[in-house]
């Protein structure tokens, strides 16, 4: 038996994905029948098929398909196959019987190259199971600290319940929605993986919320505030990309570029709206006042600050002239 006779029949879904594979044993003089009847060699569950709809025959040159009597007949590629007609399949061919799409792929057909694996699919599940509860605990601890700092002494533990529960529920919902999206495209539901990503992100953000203003205060670096404001949109974009790269792992690069462009565009727009401000980004002044032990910068004499203010004058006067449409000094004073 030549390699032309070795091959598989793949049943294709509407999305072109392979749903089932049959490996018929094709010997000359022993046709393989396809149809709804249990007597067939390949039994398909489609009401548009006749009991015995078609058969595959091994010939000298390869394999051919022959249509048995049926109402709906079939197609070979775009060619309509009539009842009683037979046609060679060659090394590879798409054909349709009733409403079922199928592909004949023989051993002679060239194989597409092996695609590198995007990620390890099996170990990730137990790992996220481990990290999940730990991350939730860490995050809840950070939120509790936050809540504690913002409340007066003697507030009841029950006061913490909602402010802590609500974000946790939101994070779980967020992860579930991403898992559902993944399910849609990848036919798996990696809830733990998405949850882990959003939790890591939340913990880092919570930490940065204290770290950056603390640093800005310690070393008197008010412009770090601008960084803090830039980080939020960048981090939000990153999180979406991070989730999306689980859903469409092969597109992670192009998604990264697209989202980066969107982010830069958005930042550019918001800066363009602030051309009248002293800074294109960030708050007007550093407002964090952590405990004084953190202060590393040495205080300067008031005259130094006044000198800095004096240096601002040119910039300020220039800004005042912008948009000042009334020419000053036009009035002839007497």
């Amino acid at each position: 038996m030549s390699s032309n006779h070795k091959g598989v029949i793949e049943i294709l879904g509407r999305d072109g994905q392979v749903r089932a594979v049959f490996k018929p044993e094709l010997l000359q003089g022993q046709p393989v029948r396809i149809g709804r009847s249990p007597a067939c060699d390949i039994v398909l569950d489609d009401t548009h098929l006749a009991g015995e709809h078609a058969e595959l025959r091994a010939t000298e040159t390869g394999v051919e398909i022959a249509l048995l009597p049926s109402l709906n007949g079939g197609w070979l590629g775009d060619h309509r196959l009539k009842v009683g007609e037979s046609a060679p399949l060659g090394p590879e061919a798409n054909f349709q019987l009733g409403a079922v799409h199928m592909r004949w792929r023989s051993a002679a057909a060239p194989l597409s190259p092996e695609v590198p694996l995007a990620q390890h699919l099996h170990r990730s599940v137990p790992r996220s199971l481990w990290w999940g509860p730990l991350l939730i605990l860490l995050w809840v601890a950070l939120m509790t600290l936050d809540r504690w700092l913002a409340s007066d002494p003697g507030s009841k533990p029950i006061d913490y319940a909602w402010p802590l529960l609500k974000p946790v529920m939101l994070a779980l919902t967020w992860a579930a929605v991403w898992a559902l999206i993944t399910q849609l495209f990848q036919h798996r539901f990696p809830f733990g993986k998405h949850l882990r990503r959003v939790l890591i992100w939340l913990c880092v953000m919570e930490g940065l919320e204290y770290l950056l203003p603390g640093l800005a205060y310690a070393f008197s670096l008010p412009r770090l505030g601008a960084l803090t404001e830039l980080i939020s949109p960048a981090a939000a974009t990153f999180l979406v990309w991070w989730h999306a790269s689980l859903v469409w792992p092969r597109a992670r690069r192009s998604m990264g570029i697209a989202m980066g462009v969107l982010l830069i565009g958005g930042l550019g727009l918001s800066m363009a709206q602030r051309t009248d401000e002293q800074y294109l980004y960030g708050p007007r002044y550093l407002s964090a006042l952590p405990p004084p032990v953190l202060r590393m910068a040495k205080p300067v004499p008031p005259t130094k600050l006044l000198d800095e203010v004096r240096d601002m004058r040119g910039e300020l006067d220039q800004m005042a002239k912008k948009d000042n449409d009334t020419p000053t000094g036009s009035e002839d004073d007497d």
Partner: protein
Amino acid sequence: MRLLSLPILVLAALLAGSLPSRAAPPPVKQAVPAAPPTAAVAPGEAASAPQPVSASARRIYDKSRNELLQIRTLLKQADSQASVGSGFVVSDDGRIITNYHVVSQFALEPERYRLRFSTTDGQEGALELLDIDARHDLAILRPVAADAKLIAGRGALQFRPRTEPLSKGDRIYSMGKPLDVAFSIVEGNYNGLVERSFDPLIYYAGSINAGMSGGPVVDEDGKVVGINVSAMILAQQMSFLVPGPFAEDLYKKSRDAKPITTAVWSRLRDQVMAYQEELTQAFIKQPWRSAGPGRYRLPVPQEDFMRCWGGGSAADSKGLEYQRTQCRMEHALYINGSLQTGYLDVQHENYDGSKLGALRFAKIYSASFRNERMGFSNKVSTAPFCREEFVDRDGLPLRAVVCLSAYRKLEGLYSLSVLVTTVDASTEGALGRFNAPGVSFDNALKLTAHYLDGFSRAVKP
């Protein structure tokens, strides 16, 4: 700072009171010409039910009605009035005194507005603006040559001599045309000058309403003692008058001035510039008062021309305890509907977070520091530009932020805000704020230095 105390807001309404002439009358009345319907009702009522009117008020009104005017600001191309006020004739050749804020729309946009007067007997004519005194909210006008005959010969109100001051309780009479309804006279009492005011301002216990701005207030002899300027809203019969001598001075200085045809920005600028110079010098000369108990000595101004209000947390507070003091000048210079300037405002809050601990205190202290509004870029001024440092004040470390925005049309004048927090203690702190809108750059620096000088550690007794 988290809260602004209520009493200050109510008092600040004094400034809003200087707007009355701009408050548009109800639309129905606006459409009606000044005289007919309202005037038709009033005499009818008077005839059918004679009231026990004050004989002197009738006498005063009869004596002054010829000199009393309504001053209207109209759109240049249309007959609709943009604002109405009052005014009066002070010389036989027809010089007229009113408030600057009554004519400010014309003064700042002469190409869009025009000024007209109407007399108590229904005559109307066009006006020219000769000069303004923004500091005292006064303006001097005259009728255009073609309409001069309508005013000339009507007589002139005389100013009460400066050598004869009024006494508290003296009966005085305010006149004008409130809300464009009808010319009217209102009896009230002279109550001396407003205390703690930088410039003298008469406290008049009588009702002044929108549209009466610029009208004369006369004594029993019909001599002008003041000019209606503002009223305190949410208060009863609390009105304010510009003392007559300032109007007399303006008349003497500018009776023959060339009429103003272009926007008066540079004149306004010069006037505000001179005013802020005087104000800054007077303010810096004063030593700071001590701010009472606590760890710090904080800058609290003398109450010579500022008024201070204070408040604090409830005594049984479980969290942060604080005390707040705000001192400000309640009188500002009116420039236009969106800008009042030329005043000082000093405030601070003293925090005691010993019940909170260092971390919780840091959180709430930061939030309070962040919660400061610094203004934004608009037609009037630029966005605030700030510089900040840790500043050492005799061993007391401060975080100081100095913000300035420049006025776009009053060149060389700036609005200053200084924010200061103490950063030496983990559960105690003070947050101070100093505002000085309408100062020169040099004075902004001087005032900042003066304000920072007011911070130090309290001297242990």
